[in-house]
């Protein structure tokens, strides 16, 4: 143990002495899935901070009625950029970044199937994200239509037509997402190929860690649902630049068509983000409960089920467009059906914890909060699937609260859990548990102050995307409480950043397997060598390291 730590320290020392430019060059030209994974996650976290600052400005503006923190146009740009950034530049790179880093390690491969495509995917994603943010400077265009786009992250037609959004801001949104989407598809192709053709000896599909299953599922989903969005964006491009009329209602087009295109992508997109979160929980909860995952097969089937059923629920975002009763009922049914596999997952995690010996390390703390918050998110999801109830709640602050419970309360919490869990593997050093606990408690209290409360103004009739509201609606006190949760979350994030910076330099050396875990990535050194494994291990069950640690009672016969 100590020997290994020493060699690691000296290697790091050697790296520190090389000129910065050489190190930088190495990162820029790398095709190593681990480095690209780290770059994905880090750029996702940087965009998270940007989007968080945008959200903070909005919350200050809405803290009371009639405030003037930001002007109306800026507010509209802020929520557009916040939403777009969070979904496309935070959620996607972080989950695919973890996939990048972990999938080859977990299945016993030396890299992804197409390392150069992988590098291409990352850089095109990054430049897509930068292009979007460049709109803050360059969006004025010829007609002075404002800087950043102000069309909402779902960019409903016909507001996106030239008649209503002149200038280039909307084009920045459109082109940036087209570009970033290329990267996402490249990564998805890479993941599918790697998972289905490059597994190590003995690693059958049925022995893959759940996280790998989730990445396989979302990669397939990406390949199916992203092309319709791309097609719609190209149509919008034609509308705006060549005078086509795909979404030009003044020339007789249908405004609802964009919504079908968009939500056929947009809804499964939520599952693309959330399923890896389930994957994190399914890796971390068993290790910290010291028990094998309860019902592996059902859990994997539930993921596939969510992916499949999830593709038939998109129009529940459109219960208020006047689809007619039959379609409303059909989409209510398909949406409610998603609750079944989702519920199964929660029960499986419960079954895993039941009878275990639960250690409350920071990763597990985040998973515990995830369980409760995801339960809330699921139940408000059921409320929203009840179409008539949805006619009241849709486009209100209730919906905003609901999807923040999904994407922050569930997804971001599992991402934090994953960072605390795999940071030792990536860097060779542990994150501080003490700072981790501060981060956790501040964030969990701040998050719930903000987003539990946010359900209320929605039910009191407050629509979303308004930069201000009249003083006499009775919404002020609720909005003030919502805003008061913000500083707690900001301090939590600051502590998280400080934790990372300090631990990178002075964290306790982690060793290969600090959590006494069972999946393959813990069998190699921390950080793993470029080639991942000196000898690719032969696998004979779902928990190869359990078999190694318990030769008297291996998993194989029980599966």
């Amino acid at each position: 143990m100590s020997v290994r730590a020493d060699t690691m320290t000296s290697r790091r020392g050697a790296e520190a002495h090389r000129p910065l430019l050489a190190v930088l060059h190495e990162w820029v030209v790398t095709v190593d899935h681990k480095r690209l994974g780290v770059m994905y996650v880090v750029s996702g976290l940087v965009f998270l901070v940007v989007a968080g600052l945008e959200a903070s400005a909005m919350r200050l503006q809405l803290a009371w009625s009639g405030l003037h923190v930001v002007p109306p146009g800026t507010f509209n740009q802020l929520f557009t950029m916040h939403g777009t950034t969070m979904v496309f530049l935070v959620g996607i790179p972080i989950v695919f970044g973890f996939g990048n880093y972990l999938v080859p390690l977990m299945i016993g491969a030396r890299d992804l199937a197409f390392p150069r495509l992988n590098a291409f995917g990352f850089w095109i994603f990054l430049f897509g994200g930068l292009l979007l943010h460049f709109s803050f400077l360059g969006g004025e265009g010829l007609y002075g239509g404002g800087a950043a786009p102000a069309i909402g992250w779902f960019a409903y037609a016909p507001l996106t037509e030239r008649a209503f959004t002149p200038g280039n801001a909307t084009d920045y949104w459109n082109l940036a997402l087209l570009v970033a989407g290329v990267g996402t598809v490249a990564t998805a192709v890479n993941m599918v190929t790697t998972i289905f053709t490059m597994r190590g000896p003995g690693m059958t599909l049925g022995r893959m860690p759940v996280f790998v299953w989730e990445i396989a599922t979302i990669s397939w989903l990406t390949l199916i649902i992203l092309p319709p969005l791309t097609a719609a964006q190209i149509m919008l491009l034609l509308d705006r630049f060549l005078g086509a009329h795909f979404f030009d209602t003044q020339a007789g087009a249908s405004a609802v068509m964009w919504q079908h295109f968009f939500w056929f992508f947009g809804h499964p997109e939520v599952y693309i983000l959330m399923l890896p979160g389930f994957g994190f929980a399914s890796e971390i909860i068993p290790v910290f409960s010291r028990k094998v995952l309860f019902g592996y097969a059902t859990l994997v089937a539930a993921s596939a089920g969510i992916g499949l059923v999830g593709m038939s629920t998109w129009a529940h975002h459109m219960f208020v467009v006047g689809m007619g009763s039959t379609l409303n009922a059909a989409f209510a049914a398909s949406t409610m059906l998603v609750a079944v596999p989702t519920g199964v997952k929660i029960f499986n995690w419960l079954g895993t914890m039941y009878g275990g010996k639960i250690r409350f390390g920071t990763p597990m703390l985040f998973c515990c909060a995830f369980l409760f918050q995801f339960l809330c998110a699921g139940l408000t999801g059921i409320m929203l699937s009840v179409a008539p109830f949805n006619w009241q709640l849709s486009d209100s602050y209730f919906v905003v609260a609901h999807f923040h419970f999904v994407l922050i309360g569930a997804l971001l919490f599992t991402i934090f859990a994953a960072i605390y869990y795999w940071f030792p593997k990536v860097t060779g050093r542990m994150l501080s548990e003490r700072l981790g606990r501060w981060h956790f408690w501040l964030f969990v209290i701040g998050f719930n102050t903000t987003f539990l409360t946010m359900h209320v103004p929605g039910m009191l009739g407050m629509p979303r995307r308004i930069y201000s509201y009249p003083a006499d609606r009775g919404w002020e006190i609720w909005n003030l409480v919502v805003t008061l949760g913000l500083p707690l979350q900001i301090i939590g994030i600051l502590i998280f950043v400080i934790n990372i910076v300090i631990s990178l330099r002075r964290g306790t050396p982690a060793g290969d397997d600090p959590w006494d875990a069972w999946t393959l990535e813990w069998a190699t050194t921390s950080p793993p060598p470029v080639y991942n494994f000196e000898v690719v291990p032969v696998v004979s069950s779902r928990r190869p390291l359990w078999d190694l640690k318990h030769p008297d009672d291996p998993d194989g016969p029980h599966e």
Partner: protein
Amino acid sequence: MRRLTCRLLLVATTVAIFSTSPATAGDNGVVQTPSIFTPASTPAFAIRELALIVFGITGVIFAVVAGLTVYALMRFRRRRGDDGREPPQVYGSRQIELAWTVVPILIVVVLFLVTARYIFAIERRAQLPEALEVTIVGHQWWWEIRYPKLGIVTANELHVPVSDPARPTPTFITLQSADVIHSFWIPQLAGKMDVIPNKTNRIWIDPQKAGGYVGQCAEYCGLQHAGMLLIVAVQTKEDFAKWVAQQQAPARIDAEVRAGRELFSSLSCINCHAVRGTSANGVFGPDLTHLMSRRTIGAGVIQNTPENIRSWIDDPASLKPGALMPAMKLSRDDLDKVTAYLLALR
């Protein structure tokens, strides 16, 4: 660093709190919180009923699952003095997993049947011959309100008669848009319905208590999405009849404001605004025939007072940034004249 951030936040909050603006003052006479739990019309009553059922079901699910989770976390935490041995490994159980798949399916089936019933009951309601018909056209950023059978055109304030549950006189509303997508939402009267260009949507209400109900556009529609408010004035049958008669009357021709009237019809005002019975017949902006019968201007963002009318004509963007009406750049004298004319349009 952290202290600096905190201080900046504090300063920003303080500044923001004390710089409140009159630009978003509502109509104090009528406003009550538009809660979906204080309904006043059948669709909203039905939705509240359904919401309570759903709250009941999800509440029980929450109690059971959260309770089990808390129990598992408390009961199975690692104790002090643990022997370090791994607990028994349980790989799954077909019966248990089947049970927790089937039970949610049953709940979903019940919930779906209930939901479908309410969908059809609300949406498939047949229109009665005595129903009032209204057409509402969404504009950036105001509501055009037409009563095709009564020959009335107004804006931003929907007047409807109260509906007696024993002999209902509902209002059936046709929703259309002149530009982008808006959404019509009066939480106490019905769920929302989008207002979509090139698509005609229908919605109905039957408010059972006289009074004022507020709502606002619920679909992001551009710069002043927040400034697109709507008031529904629910009146007794007699009051409504009076209001109809008053609205049907032609615009008042007041000799005192002749100068203002002539100025008005010589300016570009008439390209966008209509005053029935005059040469002003624009349709881009709100009909002004009975402007002074309305409580607010600018789609609810300010009270309809003489000073506000004057400032609005002078520079609408100062009261509602982004409003599509241009600043008229009139001399103070002309401004007074046009204001006087509009104030006479009762």
